[in-house]
């Protein structure tokens, strides 16, 4: 097995990194289209562009612009966030974290819409959080889903999580081994 410190392929150029995160976004859009029963023709109609144009955009993620990202998400009634994070991988040995993982974490945290809601989750339900990256941090978090949140669950939310009263997320990240 190769045990060297080979960088991830997205480290080769900004275009490569951009392609990867855009491709992750396209997969989120495709999943949203699937769950909403919207095909490319339907999405094209909502966007008032040709079906060929939609196909071109979805098949060439590297050409996506921020404007297009917002337009495609909003056409499906969704929203977009741009997330910056520190995963203790400054050399980019492991590539970007898939945006779907951030989305799932947000759903699992009860979909906090502001810092007060996030604080409430942290105060009431998080059992242990230690420090911040790049220090060794979060070992295990226990979230308790409130009944009110269940009815607000987004369509893309994992069904098993939506039905759970409580669930544990293990987010073991150990810096420097």
């Amino acid at each position: 097995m190769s045990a060297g410190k080979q960088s991830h392929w997205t480290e080769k150029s900004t275009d490569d990194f951009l392609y990867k995160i855009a491709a992750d976004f396209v997969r989120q859009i495709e999943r949203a289209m699937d769950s909403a029963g919207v095909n490319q023709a339907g999405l094209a109609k909502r966007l008032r562009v040709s079906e060929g144009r939609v196909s071109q955009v979805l098949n060439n993620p590297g050409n996506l612009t921020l404007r297009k990202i917002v337009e495609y998400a909003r056409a499906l009634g969704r929203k977009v966030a741009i997330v910056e994070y520190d995963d203790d991988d400054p050399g980019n040995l492991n590539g970007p974290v898939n945006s779907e993982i951030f989305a799932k974490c947000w759903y699992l945290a009860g979909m906090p819409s502001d810092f007060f809601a996030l604080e409430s989750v942290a105060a009431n339900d998080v059992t242990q959080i230690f420090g911040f990256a790049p220090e060794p941090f979060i070992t295990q978090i226990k979230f308790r889903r409130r009944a009110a949140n269940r009815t607000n669950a987004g369509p893309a939310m994992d069904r098993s999580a939506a039905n759970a009263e409580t669930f544990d997320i293990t987010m073991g990240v150990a810096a420097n081994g």
Partner: protein
Amino acid sequence: MATSGYLVLPIEGLKRSDRRTVAFLTKLDDASLNARAVFDKLDNKQKRTVLDRFDHWIEGAEGAAPHDKYFHGWPNNQEYKQCFVFKWKRGNGHHRLYGFLFNPQPIARANFRVCVLVSHAIKSTWETDPSELKAAKALHDNVPVIAALKALYPDKKGGTK
């Protein structure tokens, strides 16, 4: 371990995971094992498309709709349940990289899977050619191929395989 000329080559630059990785199987005198040669000759745009699909599988995605257009296996087909394919489209050509899933480290990492890519094909339709799956399955069961895999990914001692 006798590997009869089979060589397993990891793909550099992919995501690192204890659960999944992707590698190529080659053999000097076997032109049918052309997956690596084709991959190496892809232009940059196609290569990053394919690398992205490898990564997406390594991340833990399953080849279920709507993403079975990127890759999938045949888990419900008893004969070809270990076979796997990565797909991409270029113009009118439907490109495929066929291979098989194998765990060379059943003791150390019971959930580890290597997707061993063996052959490339261009189809005019999305239908799968069974001969590609037969060839991949034969390699999955081939003792020297298994030896080559275990040489690259050695297991802890104590296993029966």
